């Protein structure tokens, strides 16, 4: 074939494949916004559900989602970031660290429903938390740990060795070097992992199914040991379990869920670019 023609064809195929990536995202967003936006108003966002969830709002599900994600992040960040620091900065290459790394890879490959059943067995039943924010958050935290550890490890690994050497040569201890030189440089990358973790935790349904999500609970939680309504599960309920529900109501619920994830991501992205600028 004529090389110029081949070049053109290759270019078009690559371009088409790239455009195909945008199509589903665009369609999801457009459909949800067009069908859901008309149903969104203050009552929908801030009222309790009523009439078997066919009327009223989704306030408890919004609050439940925010609480749950916040608690998840609270558990997952320290464990994830600290273990990444240990693996990169302190651990020597031996059987234990190889097993830890293998465990992280495997943890990432476990289907989310298995996490749900694990959380049910360990937190809800064995530790006696019952279906509660704490049980759901711990389950989600375990699920997003591999994401946070892997991205934090990559971020720490990419901090140049010369920064560490310069700091140590100035008489800083290893921990001071990590705290004052390595962590600030790795922070944007670590935040990226946290963003991914938030999105994942906010959107998953299977892990929260048995550990926290309430079918219908028109009041707000008072402690970590209360059950809550959560948006992804509520979306499943209103789209499959309740007959004669207005479709705008379903789409509006989806829109709120997507909106919350977007806002969380946006906050983290702004934070990240602020730290990037400092460097």
């Amino acid at each position, binding site marked *: 074939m004529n090389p110029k023609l081949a070049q053109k064809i290759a270019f078009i195929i690559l371009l088409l494949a790239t455009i195909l990536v945008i199509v589903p995202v665009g369609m999801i967003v457009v459909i949800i916004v067009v069908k859901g936006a008309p149903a969104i108003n203050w009552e929908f966002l801030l009222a309790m559900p009523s009439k078997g969830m066919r009327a009223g709002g989704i306030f408890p599900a919004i609050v439940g989602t925010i609480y749950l994600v916040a608690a998840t992040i609270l558990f997952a960040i320290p464990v994830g970031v600290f273990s990444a620091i240990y693996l990169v900065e302190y651990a020597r290459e031996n059987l234990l660290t190889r097993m830890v790394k293998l465990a992280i890879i495997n943890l990432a490959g476990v289907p989310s429903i298995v996490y749900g059943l694990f959380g049910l067995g360990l937190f809800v039943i064995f530790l006696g938390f019952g279906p509660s924010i704490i049980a759901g958050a711990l389950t989600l935290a375990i699920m997003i740990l591999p994401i946070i550890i892997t991205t934090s490890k990559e971020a720490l690994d990419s901090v140049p060795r010369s920064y560490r*050497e*310069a700091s*140590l040569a*100035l*008489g*800083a201890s290893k921990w001071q070097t990590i705290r*004052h030189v390595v962590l*600030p*440089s790795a922070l944007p990358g670590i935040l990226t992992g946290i963003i991914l973790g938030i999105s994942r935790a906010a959107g998953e349904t299977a892990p929260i199914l048995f550990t926290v999500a309430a079918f219908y609970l028109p009041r707000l939680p008072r402690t970590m040991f209360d059950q809550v309504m959560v948006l992804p599960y509520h979306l499943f309920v209103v789209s499959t379990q309740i007959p004669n529900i207005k479709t705008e109501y379903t789409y509006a619920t989806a829109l709120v869920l997507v909106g919350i994830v977007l806002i969380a991501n946006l906050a983290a992205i702004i934070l990240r670019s602020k730290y990037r600028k400092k460097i």
Partner: protein
Amino acid sequence: MTKIAVEKLNLFYGDFQALINVDIRIPANKITSMIGPSGCGKSTLLRTVNRMNDLVDGARVDGKIIIDGDNVLDSGYDLVSLRKRVGMVFQRPNPFPMSVASNITFGLRVHGSAKRGDFDNIVEDSLKKVLLWDDLKDRLDRSALSLSLEQQQRLCIARLIAVKPEILLMDEPCSALDPIATERIEQLMIELKENYTIVIVTHNMQQASRISDSTGFMWLGELIEYGATDMIFTNPKQKLTQDYITGRAG
């Protein structure tokens, strides 16, 4: 007066012996340069003095390095106080990704060795000593990474000076710089030797002969010859030294 006395120093990386029976006395307030082909152990020797080789897995060392009467290779020797007294400048300038001022105050913050109120004065003093103050006094909060390579290397020296070391180890400090910047850093070193003992590892024999008071020539882990710089370059005692200096070996 001898500042650093290295006695029967042997260093192994696993099975490989990188330093063989090195004995050398480095005088205070002079510039001592170490020359030799790549892999001869000159950088390794330098990195043993401030014990940066401790970071290398499988590095083993025996012998003594005596600074001010104490053997710094003793396992109980306090690394923090050693590295405060023995600063190091690296091959590539390696300022931290922070502002110019934070780079200089880093050591102070880590050691807690000065009050916050004195930081501004110390920044000014340190930058003046490396002749950067006039260029940077209005840009102290700019990122150090935005400086030219020469300015970065000067900043790295200023960062050391702020910690008040006695010895400066320089590991090919000009190899990333152009000839004009190199000459200016050399000028700076000559000015600094009044207050500091400087050991420089260099590939550049002209540089060694221009700036140093004494020179050591290393070959395959051994110190072949060590003496006054003009003696080494005009009248070496060892044939190997002569061959290397005239370009027949190396």
